[in-house]
């Protein structure tokens, strides 16, 4: 069942792959409250990394640190560094807009804009100065194809983005994020508001997307993390209610032979 030789070999392979995102001693504060403590992790390029843990353990806070969405929370402050392909994303002179273009986000509840499907996907490119109709058409089509939604909506691009089903809306939001050519896609519990079939479709989509994009997904559904991800990060809060990274390893290992007892307890469902 577990092939030791295979495990060792793939560990070697991965140490040669470049880190897409490097998190070094990250601490996030909301005012005086320390929400995350000393997080260190390397996100591998073009792999799917899942962040799991009980509610309130800081998973979303960590995710939102990657695209600086935490900046929107008043009194939010970080210490430590996050590097995107070697660049410090919180450094001086960094354009937040550029970071958010390179690191896209898909939210828990699908949030299509009250515009047509076409305009939803074209919103991002338009922000960055793409105005020619032919260019926008091409980008919209390509993004919808990548999000596995094109066939279902190609005849109704003018309809409101809110008129399609929940699963389709979420794929629309994915297409919208893809339209600006990101390098990383963050997904915050992308399927938790969807029915099981839509959930599985999104999971299959993630596998396809991982060929071209680095994906980081926060999920409270362990089986989903097990099905979908290559690497899994286990988080938990300490006594000071600050989030910590307990264990970070290949998904296979986390779910068959976790090293930390807390991970084992969580993963076997005996936590709490």
């Amino acid at each position, binding site marked *: 069942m577990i092939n030791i030789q295979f495990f060792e070999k793939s560990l070697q392979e991965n140490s040669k792959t470049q880190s897409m995102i490097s998190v070094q001693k990250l601490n996030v504060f909301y005012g005086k409250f320390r929400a995350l403590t000393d997080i260190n992790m390397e996100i591998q390029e073009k792999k799917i990394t899942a962040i799991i843990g009980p509610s309130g353990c800081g998973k979303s806070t960590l995710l939102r640190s990657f*695209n600086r*969405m935490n900046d*929107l929370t*008043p009194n939010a402050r970080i210490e430590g560094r996050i590097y995107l392909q070697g660049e410090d994303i919180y450094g001086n002179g960094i354009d*937040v*807009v*550029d970071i*958010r*273009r390179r690191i*896209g*986000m898909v*939210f*828990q*509840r699908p*949030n299509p*804009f*009250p*515009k047509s499907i076409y305009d939803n996907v074209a*919103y*991002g490119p338009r*922000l*960055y100065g793409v105005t020619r109709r032919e260019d926008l058409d091409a980008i919209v089509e390509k993004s919808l194809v990548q999000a596995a939604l094109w066939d279902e909506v190609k005849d109704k691009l003018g309809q*409101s983005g*809110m*008129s399609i089903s929940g699963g389709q809306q979420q794929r629309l*939001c994915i297409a*919208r*994020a893809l339209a*600006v050519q990101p390098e990383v896609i963050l997904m915050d519990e992308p399927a938790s508001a969807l029915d099981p079939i839509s959930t599985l479709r999104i999971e299959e989509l993630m596998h396809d997307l991982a060929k071209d994009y680095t994906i980081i997904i926060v999920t409270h559904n362990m089986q989903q993390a097990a099905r979908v991800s290559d690497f899994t990060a286990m988080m938990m809060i300490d006594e000071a209610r600050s989030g910590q990274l307990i264990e970070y390893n290949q998904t296979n290992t986390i779910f068959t032979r976790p090293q930390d007892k807390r991970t084992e307890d969580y993963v076997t469902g005996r936590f709490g």
Partner: protein
Amino acid sequence: MSEFGLLIEVGMHRRKARRKATNALMLGLTVLLTVLALIPLFWIIGYVILRGGKAINLDFFIKMPTPMGVSGGGVLSAIEGTLVITLLATLFAVPPGLLAAFYSSRYPNSILGTILRFSTDVLSGVPSIVIGLFGYALIVKPQGHYSALAGSIALAILMLPTIIRTTEEMLRLVPSNLREGSLALGAPEWKTSLNVLLPAAMDGVITGILLAIARAAGETAPLLFTALGNERFEIGSIVSSGVANHQGFLAILDRIFDQPIDSLPLTLWKYAQQPYPERVEQSWAVALVLMVLVLATNILARVWIEIRKKKVRG
């Protein structure tokens, strides 16, 4: 079944007849009181139609008022005046109102936001005649004469609280992750507000504006000290006489700043007090027109809501 279950079942059966009677009584009472509440509305509508309907004819709408004692003539100037003033007031009130609402909904806990909310509440409670007085002191006195401009500004001030409150409510109803979705794509805050939040809240915002318009159109007190001074002063129309005299757009605009302007509520107030029977009759007609105008705007607002609702579902 436990012994309690049996108790409850028995009690239920025993009280059945009485329950039915009580239900019927309550229902009847509610219906009665509802009808009672609706009576004033329908009475007013009916009465105004009755009294005012007599003086309604085509002339009424297209002719200027004739001198006193002379029969015939219409209230064209008043109609035109109401339209002009209300339009101007809307133009003055909507941009600041919207922007203020955007600010206070985005930064609700800031000093400015708190002050804004408080001020809006206070302003909505200020009597409209006081606002008229304010307009007088601010614009009419320095300018030296009454004007449509002063009237519109007074009305705009009246409209502001409604617009700000409704817009703020509507913005609050927009799901926060819509905003986040736009920001996450790299859009700056102002573009997000303009391109995503405003369209999302648009239906409610428009409803708010329509309701504010409906209220402003019917206000008399603010106009007393701003758009009109002497009640015996007959005012010419600005736009239609300007067009008739081939005046340019700028010239007409100029007169808006310079000249006092008539309006429906004002006319009603004037005519109702005059000793001439036709005038009094006409005042009823004006009341009818005003009422229809306000009702129509309200209904329009609600129809708009329904249409938009259907569009989202479709």
